[in-house]
């Protein structure tokens, strides 16, 4: 193991070998979440197409990469990542966010029922619509899901910054992953809290996703509220130092 070498180089004693070297080094900030893998571990390649490429078609880089993988340590693939062609990382992330108490079976079944409900609703509309409008109706639940969440993503966010003993809501640009997270979080919260107890989650979620797909509905409204607050507090923008 490279552990002794790593700690010797870094000069920090007592650190476990799992500390990644790409950590953001701010003074007074220590990393609390780290992986057990050292920096020499590579991510697993799950894509089947990568392995199916015949050797003749590989470029020099790819050949070198393959040879390198033979000798390097590779991390274990996470349990929920599959090589299925139907796998969608956004759907997986959303399912994980919907999960409560580790009940992935329930979360996943809710997700599949939501997609089915979306499809059935759109099919109903499709059959009811006249021929000219049929081409405009989107029946693919995955496109609707992706588009709806994209429509819900805020462009700018608010961050509480402490200045002079008071917390001010300062408008701040958001990273891509934060925006995706906020869109999904708002969607799930909205569906959990604002539904009647007899209405099932897939039903409510499919309804909200359809509304968000058309840029309507409570989640879009929440996004607009966020934007308006950011606009209102734009004078505080100089409180941000990054």
């Amino acid at each position, binding site marked *: 193991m490279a552990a002794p070498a790593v700690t010797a180089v870094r000069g920090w004693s007592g650190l476990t070998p799992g500390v990644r070297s790409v950590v953001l080094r701010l003074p007074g900030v220590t990393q609390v979440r780290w992986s057990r893998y050292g920096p020499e571990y590579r991510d697993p390649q799950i894509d089947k197409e990568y392995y199916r490429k015949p050797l003749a078609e590989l470029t020099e880089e790819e050949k070198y990469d393959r040879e390198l993988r*033979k*000798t390097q340590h590779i991390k274990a693939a996470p349990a929920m990542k599959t090589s299925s062609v139907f796998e969608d990382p956004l759907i997986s992330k959303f399912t994980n966010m919907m999960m409560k108490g580790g009940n992935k079976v329930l979360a996943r079944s809710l997700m599949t029922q939501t*997609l089915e409900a979306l499809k*059935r609703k759109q099919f109903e509309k499709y059959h009811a619509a006249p021929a000219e409008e049929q081409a405009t109706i989107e*029946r693919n639940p995955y496109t609707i899901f992706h588009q709806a969440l994209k429509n819900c993503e805020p462009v700018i966010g608010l961050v509480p910054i402490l200045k002079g003993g008071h917390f001010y809501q300062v408008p701040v640009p958001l990273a891509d992953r934060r925006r995706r997270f906020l869109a999904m979080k708002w969607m799930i919260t909205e569906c959990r809290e604002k539904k009647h107890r007899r209405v099932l989650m897939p039903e409510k979620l499919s309804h909200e996703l359809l509304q968000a797909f058309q840029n309507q509905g409570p989640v879009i409204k929440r996004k607009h509220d966020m934007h308006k607050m950011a606009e209102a507090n734009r004078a505080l923008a100089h409180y941000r130092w990054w």
Partner: protein
Amino acid sequence: MPPSCLHNTQTNLSGAQPTPPPRAHSPAPSPKPAARLSGTPLRPARRDFPGGPGSRPGPPLPHPAALPEVQVREMTGAPGKPRAEWSRKCLGPEASPGASTHRVRGRGPHMRVQRAGTMLKGMTRLISRVHKLDPGRLLHTGTQAPQNLTAQLDDQVSSERPRAISRTSENDPAKHELRHEGQHYNIPLPDVKALFPQGLPPRYLKQVKTFNEACLMVRKPALELLHHLKNTNFAHPAVRYVLYGEKGTGKTLSLCHIIHFCAKQDWLVLHIPDAHLWVKNCRELLQSTYNKQRFDQPLEASIWLKNFKTANERFLSQIKTQEKYVWNKRESTEQGSPLGEVVEQGMTRVRSATDAVGIVLKELKRQSSLGTFRLLVAVDGVNALWGRTTLKREDKSPIAPEELALIYNLRKVVRNDWNGGAIVLTLSQTGSLFKPRKAYLPQELLGKEGFDALDPFIPILVSNYNPKEFESCLQYYLENSWLQHEKAHTEEGKRELLFLSNSNPGQLERLCACL
């Protein structure tokens, strides 16, 4: 050998499907043996599902049950393997089961195969595999072997065409034959409402509503049953046919196919959609007025009477009761009055609904022997009649099924002591009580009592889709644009669906619903 291969072989044995040679390029020495790099985790800790060129190294296991049409498209798509396709195509028609395999070593196609050189290895392996599968298939097809051969040869030829046919225009079940196997036929929606007010599975109903059409696949078990029904001798006692199979294989829909046929042939259809509903979750249990030992179920009985009336409107005025029935002090039905009156009485006076049901069953059983009409008794979930119930008396002691009047009367109808019709039954674990999930055989589900009561019966196994039916089902979904995921249209996606569902119709439907 990965278990997925086992599943494939099992499917083939039960499906009696001709085995055109599998992808002949996989047994051929892979031109790039180094495609599989040692030390690289080609396969993650989970099993990879089979298929895909080059994903399996060394001595492979050619899938005898691989999709024939899929292979056609794959071969045309894969570059650099024209010889395999060409030799497979010429060997294709000859590789039908039984008689013709030994002729492969003879003239013409074999000579061309010899010229194909390295493909011969794959061919011999294929031949040995076809030989191995032969006895099982012949045993299974039984009396229908001759038609099978010709039909399968036709299908071989049709499988060479690029698109599998999933629909047939033959909408009359009486004319369905083996050549329609795997194809969907359309039932007009008004007929669906009239014939099946209650009998269709809920997921199928949703599908009918979404697609705006009711299409049933013509499958071997139903065809076999139709053949038997067409040749019934109405002078002999009613024959009992029991459809059994694992969960989700299509027993209920096969039953619906039979009911459609019988209704078209103007039989009187006595359809009990789910006998399990009568032995559980009953809100009101009344002590029966007719027999103090038994219990009445007014709600279930009245619902059934309503649906019976919808399905068999025209018979209710023709059939007359043969004795007088006294309901209570003020009401009675005279002898010779139409059966419709008894049904009306049951529907209006809900307290006597169970007795009305009993009377209907008794009268129909008695009068079917006279020959004025033919009776089809169709019970779904017949293992409920001999199982246990979850119903309890006021003193919390359990009630046995025979203490329920509905079940008691139904048991009498299912006995084969009458003639002039047929009895088609379905076993079902899905709604059953106190039965293990994996149980599907008649002995397991019926128990000793039920098996002895039903003995003798003709068992008909309903199994998973064979490759042709699977392809047809996917084709049907594609035609209705039900598979919206862009990867579902690809071969990779189809292979994955085959693997995930194991060709089980119910599972496939659930998987395709969210794609």
